[in-house]
């Protein structure tokens, strides 16, 4: 599903990369093409191969098959120190024996730049992450957020072609994380860096990135803009992994012009999709499309309110109908009127209803 055309303008191109450890295939023919200055997040469950993919790009691991190219140069066999790829590690990996400035200067010192140049570059990188006042501090005297910014400054100072972040924000508390998301976005825009951001936090992926790559079991399931990932998930996995949804399984009875009619336990529903009659499918929609309605067009299901979850300005209403569960997101006042166990009829447009092949039954 990730068969994007790989255009020549792409800055970082991973082509058909595979990696196995012993008997387990960790990456399975992964394709990824990223434009210069673009921020792509890799989103996926634990163990799906996100870190491994980053390590291939950084040169810290070799692919068994496939290639990695940066700025048109094949770097598959190039060792990490000659790739110019910056990495911000999950645990920051700051050098404990060096000060903040020492850490940031490290890459430039290794490159034997003149002292004055190094000092200037360090000042610039530290200013970018708002840490100029802490240059002389030892690493052990920094907070988590400050360490994270030092790690970023250290990676930025060498002006890498590509920046990789492995769950760089996951150790921070929620408030700091949100602040840092904004900061990072600003900094990456300023320097027009091509960046990959690994996370398993879907909010982080949706708010920060130009495009999101949803990974599952060593494959990229979908690579698209955040809005599309949410509104037009390409697979049941993406639908499940990103955001909430109502999912009802059933059997296709008719297909006409990209609209299928599906028989389910809660009645007949229409959905966009192309399937042969008789196919087992899952019909799905997002909670914000469901509205209380008397006799609306489109899909409609009657049921009983099971729970109302208050979420500030909006509430999430769980409705039980014929053994299935419907999730509706309603404005606070509307939801406040709903008593538990009350009868409710929910309707939603066919254009926001999608059919996916039903997952194969586990043998």
């Amino acid at each position: 599903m990730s068969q994007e055309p790989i255009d020549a303008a792409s800055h970082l191109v991973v082509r058909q990369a595979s990696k196995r450890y012993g008997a387990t295939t960790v990456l399975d023919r992964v394709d990824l093409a990223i434009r210069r200055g673009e921020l792509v997040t890799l989103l996926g469950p634990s163990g799906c191969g996100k870190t491994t993919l980053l390590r291939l790009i950084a040169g810290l691991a070799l692919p068994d098959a496939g290639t990695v190219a940066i700025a048109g140069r094949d770097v598959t066999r190039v060792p990490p120190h000659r790739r110019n790829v910056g990495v911000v590690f999950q645990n920051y990996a700051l050098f404990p024996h060096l000060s903040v400035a020492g850490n940031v200067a490290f890459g430039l010192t290794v490159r034997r730049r003149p002292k004055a140049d190094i000092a200037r570059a360090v000042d610039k990188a530290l200013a970018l992450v708002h840490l100029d006042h802490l240059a002389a501090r030892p690493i052990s005297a920094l907070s988590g957020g400050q360490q994270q910014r030092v790690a970023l400054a250290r990676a930025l100072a060498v002006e890498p072609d590509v920046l990789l972040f492995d769950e760089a924000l996951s150790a921070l508390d929620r408030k700091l994380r949100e602040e840092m998301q904004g900061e990072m976005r600003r900094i990456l825009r300023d320097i027009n860096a091509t960046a990959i951001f690994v996370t398993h936090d879907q909010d982080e992926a949706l708010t920060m990135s130009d495009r999101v790559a949803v990974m599952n079991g060593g494959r990229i399931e979908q690579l698209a803009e955040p809005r599309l990932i949410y509104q037009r998930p390409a697979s049941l996995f993406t639908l499940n992994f990103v955001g909430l949804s109502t999912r009802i399984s059933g059997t296709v009875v008719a297909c006409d012009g990209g609209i299928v009619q599906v028989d389910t336990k809660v009645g007949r529903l229409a959905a966009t999709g192309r399937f042969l009659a008789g196919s087992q499918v899952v019909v799905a929609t997002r909670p914000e499309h469901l509205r209380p309605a008397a006799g609306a067009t489109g899909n409609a299901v009657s049921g009983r309110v099971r729970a109302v979850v208050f979420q500030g300005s909006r509430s999430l209403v769980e409705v039980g109908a014929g053994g299935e569960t419907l999730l509706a997101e309603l404005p606070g006042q509307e939801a406040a009127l709903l008593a538990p166990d009350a009868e409710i009829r929910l309707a939603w447009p066919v254009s926001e209803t999608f059919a996916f092949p039903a997952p194969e039954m586990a043998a």
Partner: protein
Amino acid sequence: MTRPLAILFAWTMALGAALFLLAPLMVIAAASFSPTPVFDLPVGGASLRWYARIGQMDGFWPALSLSLQIAALSTALALALGTLAAIAIAQGRLPGAEAIGTFLVSPLMMPGLVLGIALLQYFRAMGFSAAWSALLLAHLVVTLPYVARTMIAGLSRFDFTLVEAARTLGCTYPGAILKVMVPALAPSFLTAGLFAFLASFDNYPVSIFLTDVRTKTLPIKMLQYIEEAPDPTLAALSTLILGATVILLVASDRLVGLHRMAGTGQ
């Protein structure tokens, strides 16, 4: 108990313990300035005459030189061997690594006397009679556990992603080891060396079995001396050794920080 009282209590106990530990040292230091030839506090005026006599002690210089040689050499050997062993153990790919680690450290838990007698028997049985080499080997057995223990602890806390970070920043693999792993382990190295050196330098129970008339280490010489002529010269010598140790510790602290050496800091 209320909070201020508890704090007061804690401080009193801490100060009391520190005083209890330091009092003998302070008494020795004070006695070394005594003007009279008995161990006495210098009430009627201080004198440095016992310091002047240290060098004239019978057999002092050879004993000092022997102790320094053995301590320096056994420490250097233990650092090399212990570090290599620790690397093998800490990487965890060695079968039975943990058992080997425990075995290396085990002499620490053995009474020195037992170790001394065992080594004496062993060397005799082998027909090995050169006192100097026997001492060196025995002290290697004494110092190796200190090095192995400290280096295994240091290495197991070492984060190997630091090496990867250095590589992505432009270091070759050997360069990354040299620039990141070696400095990160420097505190462990220094601690190990310091403890090993001190353990060897003041070892008495193991050395006593392996010395002969001409080969005597400083602690043995000092004990012999106190039996023959107990005067404050020994107090003066002890004070000098104490001073040297303090200087060594302060210098190490300046270099890497004692909190990092003790492994209590971040």
